[in-house]
């Protein structure tokens, strides 16, 4: 029983397709359960491998608590997670899909704001004139905090968002946002612009392994290309 491997894969969209494809390229054929929406799968001729489809964020969590041995998810989600959790997970390999950037974006018409240095000034301006803080909407509070503080922006307040963050500046919920973008189209279509030096993280899909299993799974993981 000791050689059982539980693998978590993203349950939806392009990331799911690409993750399945990654295994197939490695001659590991993913066998879908006959019930179309079932969340479990197996691999042909590998009875010891079990696949579970999960939300990409959950894959990180489950690697941390030992439910999963191996998983495919985004680097952004690992880096955003709490440090204790990060310490339990190894990045085995960066994969060539799922590329996206976490960026700071401002409304197009803030034509006076091109760089983080500008943003820092505007934030101080808002603080001193209105005695409030610049609101930054984000799904990535930890990475955003770390980035802004390192760039000298201190006068802000984070607004946590679950989705459609791009709308926040225009419905009065925040002034600016940080968000993940792969083509920039959603930002553009919502009249937002990335700051010139506003790249917080270059993310990509990764093959992760639970640190506890890293050694025993090394032969298996090394066989994946």
């Amino acid at each position: 029983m000791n050689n059982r491997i539980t693998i978590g894969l993203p349950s939806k969209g392009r990331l799911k397709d690409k993750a399945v494809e990654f295994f197939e390229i490695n001659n590991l054929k993913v066998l879908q359960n006959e019930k179309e929406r079932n969340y479990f799968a197996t691999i042909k001729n590998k009875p010891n491998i079990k696949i579970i489809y999960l939300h990409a964020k959950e894959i990180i969590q489950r690697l941390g608590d030992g439910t999963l041995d191996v998983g495919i998810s985004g680097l952004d989600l690992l880096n955003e997670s709490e440090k204790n959790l990060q310490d339990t997970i190894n990045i085995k390999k960066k994969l060539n899909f799922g590329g996206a950037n976490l960026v700071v974006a401002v409304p197009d018409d803030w034509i006076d704001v091109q760089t983080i240095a500008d943003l820092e000034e505007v934030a101080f301006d808002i603080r001193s004139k209105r005695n409030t803080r610049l609101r930054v909407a984000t799904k990535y509070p930890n990475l955003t905090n770390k980035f802004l503080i390192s760039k000298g922006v201190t006068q802000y307040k984070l607004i946590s968002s679950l989705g459609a963050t791009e709308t926040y500046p225009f419905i009065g919920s925040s002034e600016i946002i940080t968000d993940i973008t792969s083509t920039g189209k959603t930002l553009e279509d919502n009249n937002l612009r990335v700051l010139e030096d506003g790249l917080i993280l270059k993310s990509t899909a990764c093959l992760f392994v639970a640190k506890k299993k890293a050694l025993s799974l090394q032969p298996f993981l090394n066989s994946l290309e």
Partner: protein
Amino acid sequence: MKSKKLSEKIIKTFKSNGFVLSEPDVLLDSEYIIQRSGENFRRSILAFENEDGKVMCLRPDLTVASCIKFLEKKSKSKIYYSGQAYRRANKKGSNLINEQLGIEILGSKNQLKDDFKVIKTILDSAKKTKSKKILIKVGDIGLFKKLINSLEMPERWKLRLIRHFWRPNYFEELLKRLEKNSDIDSVNFNTDKKRFYEMKKMKQEQLIAGRSVSEILKRFDKKIKDPRSFNEGKKIVKIIRSFLEINCQLSTLDNKLLNFAQKNNLEKNIFKEFKSIQNLKKLNQEVKFITNFRRDIEYYTGIVFEIISGKKEIARGGRYDDLLKSLGAKKNIPAVGAAINLSNI
């Protein structure tokens, strides 16, 4: 028990100097604190959500808690506090609970007298508890501001250096940038100029993500007109660095500053106003002046000081005229205060 006796001794000195007990609330609205201290402070507070969904926290600091009390008009202006403050630190093994004991003078305009009163009271109480040799280290953020304002560089750079004086690492980064003249703002404005003219025709009071069109255009305009590059960077950084190396006995400070101004071709009288520090000569105590008196707390605006006994810092304090405004006061309210570091006594 030892510390209780010590506290009593110190409090006696506070009282005999006219300070009245203030008992600030233990629970504070955490939004209030975050609004003041910044998002990064969220990690440091001990917070919970109450039944209404409001996030409350244990008071992280008695200065802030006392100021809130004062603004609610529930305390006198010349106060002392004694109690616990609760804060998470990044370091492992550091205490969550800190005993704090200190004094504040809030809302009084007599700066010179108040600065002296606070330092003298703290010094007297420190003396009652320690027999080791006492040294006062003092600085003044106002002097740094005066130096920066006298130098030839774009206004935005001046403000930036002043704003980040209290963050040593980032400040150093700024100096390096200034030295190399790699002003990150030097971007091409051509594409936006077009939009600038379009926006000029818009309703000027219209808001775009919380900022009015006129506000955006005004800043844009100022940015283009501000000198975009300056070759003096290296020279300016050299002056700033050498200023930050000034450390001397209070008695020789006048001469030092004068020499510094002469050597760097600055106007003779740029540092003339620092009476609060000069006043400390009256203490009959060894006072050391340092320019590079930097803290990880941004709220000081004027005089700052530490009292050292042996090698340990036993008290610290300073003037913070902007704090009450940042806590919601309509205008700047002068404030000066200091706290005893009980764990080092």
